[in-house]
């Protein structure tokens, strides 16, 4: 009995290790976007991810067919949502110019491809608010040159696009959205 339980526990540990080996990179990227740290030096994102993954590990036996990736992502978003104030400051990452809640909406909606309603439910916000946060975050991100780690592209084209996307924008107020 004890032997069988130990064997089952070892199997779970192996499954979990394999899961982290496969999904760790993507999850760490998502966490790094959330904490707005430069890629390569993201201790805060790592800390957040380890906490989220630990919960996934603890719930491993109770997942019952749920995708562990979804579980880990949900835990990551929940942990981050609990410490929004802590992440107000930009640390030089791509989404550093955005307030933490907009970062979370952008990452869930556009990086992870989570649906509007599911995102709203996860954050405990009305759908309209999620839509607004997404619009605002998109406008801010496209209106300013992203920090170092973004793929290089002509600046003029990006600026033109940003202007074209906001027909009512008054010249000179850019970036103040």
């Amino acid at each position, binding site marked *: 009995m004890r032997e069988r339980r130990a064997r089952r526990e070892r199997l779970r*540990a192996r499954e*979990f*290790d394999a899961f*982290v*080996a496969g999904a*760790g*990179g*993507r999850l*760490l*990227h998502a966490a790094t*976007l959330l904490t707005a740290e430069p*890629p*390569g030096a993201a201790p805060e994102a*790592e800390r957040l*991810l*380890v*906490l989220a*993954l*630990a*919960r*996934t*590990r*603890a719930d*491993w036996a109770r997942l019952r067919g749920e995708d562990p990736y979804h579980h880990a992502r949900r835990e990551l978003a929940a942990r981050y949502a609990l410490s929004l104030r802590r992440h107000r400051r930009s640390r030089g990452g*791509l989404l550093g110019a955005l307030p933490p809640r907009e970062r979370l909406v*952008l*990452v869930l909606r*556009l*990086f992870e491809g989570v649906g509007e309603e599911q995102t709203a439910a996860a954050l405990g916000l009305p759908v309209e608010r999620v839509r607004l946060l*997404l*619009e605002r*975050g*998109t406008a801010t*991100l*496209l209106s300013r040159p*992203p920090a170092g*780690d*973004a*793929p290089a592209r002509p600046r003029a084209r990006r600026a033109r*696009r940003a202007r*074209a*996307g906001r027909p009512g924008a008054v010249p000179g107020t850019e970036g103040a959205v």
Partner: protein
Amino acid sequence: MSLPDRRENEVRRLLAHRPGRPVPADLAERAGLLGTRLLRRRRALLAAAWLVLGAAAVALAAWALATEPWSVPPPATSPTGGW
């Protein structure tokens, strides 16, 4: 494709760009250790809760057997008779 869609796709592209950066080797180990510790604590808490529940049940049974609250107490007042 509508304009907002194009802008969202642009952001999608920016977000998806992942510089080739290795995941720390001990990530799974750290999370695994913390996770099993969490699990042990959760199990201990559950065991303690069951223990408290069991003790409460035994105490209730002992008290009930001792005082027999279901037996009717002898009448404290005498019958009035005639009314």
